């Protein structure tokens, strides 16, 4: 009985996952599609200053948008950008709505099963909170039982609520979460430390601070469709990523967008240094 049931579900599951695990043979569908239509569609963030956000004209700009431009330029194709959300970015890639995703995504083991995350990782960030100076948070344990605003789709919501007992109120977007913090609906906003830092330096959050030690430092990964990971597209992006790190291009972009320099990029540059360079 159990076997039969399992077999039945197996068939339905199989039908629904047509794209799964056929990486053994390279069809290079996504790569060929991009090259033949002369345009690459990249999923980027539109609400994550300064990695991907809208300028005053409504155009998408930011560090990751510059990276997307590098990719299109190297491939010699036109660039189209599609804004994605943390909670739908992997689905966009799975369904072929985008060819490439550069969207501040943390590289997690369970995500690697769904999309083709490219090595080497191009950035890293830890988890921290932005909290009013008036609250005077000292340690993560201070969050226990308190309302903490967050955004749907961030992997650390679960960690913070399980490890420190914080009562996570997750909004669909950062704008809503930050508004709730301003409205004093929560004592802190949990997010990536690098993003919080850029908010604090913007001058709009003078009464706030980032009082805790960052935790769970997690590298970011850009992603291609899973079937492309070990094929032309994936290998190409690995090359792009390597060059970004080795040439110091990302450090340059970090500076351009006013992001506090991270030790990660400096150490990666050192690690990948050309041995002939003295």
């Amino acid at each position: 009985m159990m076997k039969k049931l399992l077999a039945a579900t197996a068939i339905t599951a199989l039908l629904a996952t047509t794209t799964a695990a056929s990486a053994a043979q390279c069809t290079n569908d996504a790569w060929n599609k991009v090259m033949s239509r002369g345009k690459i569609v990249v999923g980027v963030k539109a609400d994550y200053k300064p990695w991907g956000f809208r300028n005053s004209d409504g155009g998408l700009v930011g560090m990751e948008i510059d990276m997307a431009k590098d990719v299109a330029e190297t491939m010699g194709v036109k660039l189209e950008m599609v804004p994605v959300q943390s909670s739908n970015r992997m689905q966009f890639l799975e369904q072929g709505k985008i060819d490439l995703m550069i969207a501040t995504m943390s590289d997690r083991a369970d995500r690697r099963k769904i999309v083709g995350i490219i090595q080497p990782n191009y950035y890293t960030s830890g988890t921290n909170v932005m909290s009013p100076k008036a609250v005077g948070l000292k340690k993560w344990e201070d969050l226990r039982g308190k309302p903490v605003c967050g955004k749907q789709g961030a992997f650390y919501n679960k960690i913070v609520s399980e490890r420190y007992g914080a009562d996570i109120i997750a909004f669909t977007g950062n704008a809503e979460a930050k508004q709730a913090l301003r409205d004093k609906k929560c004592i802190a906003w949990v997010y990536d430390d690098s993003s919080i830092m850029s908010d604090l330096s913007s001058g709009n959050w003078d009464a706030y601070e980032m009082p805790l030690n960052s935790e769970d430092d997690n590298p970011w990964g850009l992603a291609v469709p899973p079937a492309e990971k070990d094929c032309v597209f994936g290998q190409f992006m690995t090359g792009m990523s390597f060059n970004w790190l080795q040439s110091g291009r990302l450090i340059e972009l970090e500076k351009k967008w006013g992001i506090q320099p991270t030790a990660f990029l400096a150490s990666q540059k050192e690690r990948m240094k050309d041995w002939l360079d003295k």
Partner: protein
Amino acid sequence: MLASFQDFFRQLAEDFPRWNFIFFHDPVQADRILTGLGYTITLSIACVILSVIIGVGGAWMQGSHLRIPRMIVQGYIQFFRNTPPFVQLLFFYFALGQFTPTYSPDGWLEIPIISNVGWAIISLSFFAGAFNVEIFRAGIEAVPRSTVEAAEALGYTRLGIFRHVVLPLSFRVSLPALNNNLVNLVKTTTQAFAIAVPELLYQAVSIWNDYPSALYPAMLLLFVVYILLVGILVFGMHRWEHGMRIPGYGN
């Protein structure tokens, strides 16, 4: 029994990484779904009851001889019927929420007296209530003028006529349309997600964000649960409709 049920889904998740029915074998996730279900049912029941009350009250005011109450109801309908419920929710919670009294447990937090759940109930009830007013008005207009005149001749007051004659008759005419609107209302409760009400959609999205492998199963669960919830509502409404049937009147 329960253990083999859990083992089956654990095995399924292992064999098919995209079909991790995590809420069937992980108690923590099961708990999240149940909490969400609780909020969804609470929202649904509260909004259905409130919106019907608003509908009846609004329809009564609309039949008033005075201009002011009629204009108020008309303005209310135009506003709530012609704007998206999603925007209403955000506006109620973020903008109006600023003006409600708050209390502070720790000197900094300002917990509003009306929580996000409260705002969701208020906002969604007003939204569905606007449609209900129109639905009941249609029912009221279907009551023959001669019936009302007969009641007037018997010396009924305006409220008396509404309560004992017009409302009972019109209610029967309105039920099918009301049924539709309430079904929509139950489904619209998912929009409370926007103001972080931890209802079923919120919990399902949280689960598939934490466990990407549970995406399809969680979506499937959402469909099944809403089919059941709406099914129960429709069943109840049909029973009610049947129970109130007057031979020779209506259908």
